């Protein structure tokens, strides 16, 4: 609309100048007329050139992927590169931002200048309110000519994502009453130092083995580092099963509660077995979590899952797929957030 108004106004101005020129037959007005006639042609040609030369790149942090924490500021970067000597004072980049785990999506436009033979960089600070993978994608760029008459559109496909971990308020503040009250003796014993797992074999140390697996006595005897290769005693490990419900508030609460619970447990030295029901593979995905890094890897994987609406989807499948697990810590949506309790399997 603005463009049409500008074109009409320009034509009127041109017509007025033509009349003045006819009236005065002035060299100066002749120059003005030449300028007014050639300017739209040149700016139009320059705009076509610019469209060919412009590109858009989206970055998260320094690369295409980054990590962030819920409710903490994280940054995307929009870079508009131009290899030509044309420019635009108004380039509109259409952007889509989405949280794939929560299934939310929004679009917006950023209007930026396109510099001659250079790059314009815009930092877009965002605050994720939900955990998941937040992706920012540039869909298209529309560049306006210098006289503001028209836009030229160019499709672009550049995106970057930020993996957002739930916020963790710290060990001391987490309410563990419900968990501890229902924790089984066997699960209590899974804390490090009370290891009930079976040793399957003893072998030489391979770089990457955990230090706690080293068989110190034997290593001292043989003068070579030996490690105990263990087989998990699943019915003796602390299993945590979150329900990945599609309701945003519940999912947020469940993920946050699961994260906080696991983090608290591993900081206490408890090895945790995180299991969740994958709608994509229609199977349980499980992760042994000893350290925070294990937890974040597991969550990053979990964020690619599809959420579901059935309230006890994971619990139902647990009984069918893993009948050997007698009980587990079950995290699901409750009335005012997440409920965590020990659930008997079956």
């Amino acid at each position, binding site marked *: 609309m603005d463009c049409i108004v500008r074109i009409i106004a320009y034509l009127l101005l041109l017509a007025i100048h033509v009349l003045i020129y006819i009236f005065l037959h002035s*060299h100066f007005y002749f120059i003005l007329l030449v300028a007014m006639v050639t300017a739209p042609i040149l700016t139009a040609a320059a705009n076509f050139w610019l469209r060919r030369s412009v590109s858009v790149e989206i970055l998260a942090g320094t690369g295409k992927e980054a990590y962030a924490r819920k409710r903490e500021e994280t940054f995307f970067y929009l870079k508009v590169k131009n290899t030509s000597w044309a420019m635009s004072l108004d380039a509109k980049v259409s952007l889509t931002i989405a949280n794939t785990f929560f299934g939310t999506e*929004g679009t917006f436009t950023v209007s930026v200048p396109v510099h001659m033979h250079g790059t314009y960089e815009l930092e877009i600070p965002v605050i994720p309110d939900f955990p998941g993978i937040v992706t920012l994608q540039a869909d298209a760029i529309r560049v306006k000519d210098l006289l503001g008459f028209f836009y030229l559109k160019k499709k672009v496909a550049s995106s970057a994502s930020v993996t957002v971990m739930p916020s963790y308020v710290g060990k001391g503040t987490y309410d563990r009453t419900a968990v501890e009250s229902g924790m089984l003796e066997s699960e209590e014993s899974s804390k490090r130092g009370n290891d009930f797992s079976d040793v399957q074999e003893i072998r030489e140390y391979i770089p990457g083995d955990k230090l706690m697996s080293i068989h110190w006595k034997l290593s001292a005897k043989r003068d070579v580092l030996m490690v105990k290769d263990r087989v998990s005693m699943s019915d003796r490990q602390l299993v945590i099963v979150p329900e990945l419900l599609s309701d945003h508030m519940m999912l947020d609460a469940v993920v946050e509660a699961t994260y906080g619970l696991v983090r608290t447990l591993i900081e206490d030295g408890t090895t945790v077995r995180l299991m969740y029901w994958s709608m994509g593979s229609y199977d349980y995905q499980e992760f042994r979590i000893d350290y925070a890094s294990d937890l974040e890897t597991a969550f990053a994987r979990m964020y690619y899952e599809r959420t579901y609406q059935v309230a006890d989807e994971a619990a139902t499948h647990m009984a069918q797929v893993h009948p050997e697990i007698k009980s587990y810590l079950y995290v699901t949506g409750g009335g005012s957030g997440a409920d965590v309790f020990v659930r008997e399997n079956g």
Partner: protein
Amino acid sequence: MARKVKEQTPVLCDGVRLSESFYEKKENRIFTLLVKGFIVYLLAMGAVGFYLSAMDVSYNEILCHFVILVVSLLCALLYYRLLIENLGYLALFLTFGYLVLVFRDYINSGYYAMVNITIRNASEYFDVDVKKLYTERIGDRYLTITLMAIFVGVVLAILLNVFISRRMQYVNALFAVMFLNVIPLYLVFEPGMLYTLMIVTGLSASMVIKGGRHYNPLLQIKRSDTAYELKEKRKKREFSYIYDVKAMLQAGALAAVFSILVVSGVHAFRPVESFNVGYKTNKYKELTMSAISTVMLDGFEGLMRDSRYKGGLRSGELGSVSSVRLDHQTDLIIQFTPYDDSMLYLRGFVGEIYNPYQNEWTTAEAVRGVSLDQTAEINALEAAYDEGDEFAARGQMRIRNVDGGPDVTYRPYYTAEYVKNSRNFFYDVTYYPRLQGNMARINPDDYESGAPYTDADLYVPPENLPVIEAFVRENGMLTDTSDQLIIHVMDYFQENIPYTVRPGKTPKGEDFVNYFLTDNKKGYCAHYASAAVLIFRYMGIPARYVEGYAVSYDDVTSGELMDEKAYAYSDYYDGFSVLGETAMVEVEAKDDDAHAWVEVYSAKFGWIPVDVTPASSGEEDVSDFWSDFERLMGDGDSTDGEITDGGNGLRISQNLIKTVIYVIVGLMLAASAFGVLLVLIRRILYLIRYTRASESDKLVMNYAARRKKRARKDEGFKACLNYKTQVAYLAKEEFPAYADLVSLLERAGYAAGSIGKEEFDRAIEALNTLYAKER
């Protein structure tokens, strides 16, 4: 203190917000202000330099550039903060006022120097004498013009700064820059290339920056350094940059490069020196030239107070004005009884001697101290009346001189006596009209002056002889009898010399009659009468030049009938009347009736009026826009002399004008149609969206439409920032559905929830009630 602009932090999608730090990005506004200041400098200095370079005036250019640049930049920087702007403008005006006061004599002299230079250039262009020049108190033009240029430049910089720095209004800026610079262009003086370049660059840069649509006047007023703003329109969200110095600089540089290429290119291919070679000025400029020349040489007073022509023709002065401008005011009020349908001539000035090159007629009184009388004619007619001649008559006429000149007495043919009433400025006249059929012969001995005419009535100045002789010979008038000659001359004028009230001034050094007959070949009554007198004299017919009023029968019939009881017909007229018994009428003679004609001597009837002025075509005199437009748009085969004589060049030019006017009218119509269409399309799109929308969206749209409509006419409502306060404002005191309506609106549009059909209906009903209640 910088005021922080608080922006909302919008939700980009459910679960992702834009951080407030986005708005903390700053851009150094000082640089953007400096860029704008530089554009102001280009335009202000360009405008000043344009005029001075066009008029080829020498002044201290470097000092002007420096001062105007500094002032332009300072003016632009005033917009950095509101406080700076307020105090800065105050300081600027005080300083400026003080300096103007100190240097007022210099500036004043510089101004008059420029006016004088312009007048001299204009007089050369119009080829007329300079009527008056202004006194320059200080003679050092280099100094005074420099100071005047700085003064004008600073004023322009302050003005342009408002247009450019605030809103980048390049159209206003263009008007301000070209307002006075049209004068040199009109006089065919072109500016220097540098100043052309400055103006073109300044305009190009401002157009480009404005075209970027990042010139938000509201944010300019906020004086915020925030680099980005949020624009939300119809659920579309756009984060738009406000300032970017690099982009502004690059755009300005591109504009400069473009301007340099265009200006230098045009100068290379169409040099200014040869631009107008072979070009003949166009018809429309010609139409304005008389008025413009009067304004330039005599000032606006020249248009309004031309004493020579105010109150008709009465001085015998010729050719000093380029066109006759009528005030259409009443000059004489005549009360008389009409007796025929011919023109009623009222003599005021009778010229006997024509002074070539001085271009004026002088009276016999002035030359010889003798007054020209009509005693013989009066005696003959009076005798015929007394003897009861069938076609003889005597009339009484009262003439009130309203604005026909205080020192002139206007009398009809043939006035026997007049009695002047000095108190009321009217005089009563007794006259004997020579009606058709009245063959009363005169006795030449009756003239009080002793002879019916003298050599002066046959005198043709030697300066005019060759032209008159050639005219008579070339037009085959040498063998004409007196009667034939008169008709021949009248016919010739009618057919060959068009009547115009805009013949242009007689150029300096030219004779009025010679120029009329040989070069100009167009004119008004004074031209025809003067030329005819000399032609008649050359051919041996005693002739005189007369100025006065010629009241047509149409004017008479449109006069006011007077009370028959108070003004009985028989008291004012007696004798033969072509019209039969009429009545006393009061007729107003206006400027339009002022006229010049010829008196020729007839041995039978004495001095009789002869009107050689051809009838006006009517078209030429009508000069209002619509008539011109109609003519322009009319028949392309117009027989207007200027068109047919002009050849192809003029035809093309007029066709071009025609096309351009069509284009403009077409564009205006298209723009109007487009506006209407746009409103319709918007309405249709709205209805489509409304029909397809969910109940929540419908309610939001419905409410938004009501809100928009209401806000237009209710400032109090407009001040309410959200729907809660808006509904409360409308509800005033009692509105039971307030809570429910607010809740529904909140759910529909301002929260994640939605509403159903029933709730929508309930909300609409509540809104209807609310608005009905308000009404």
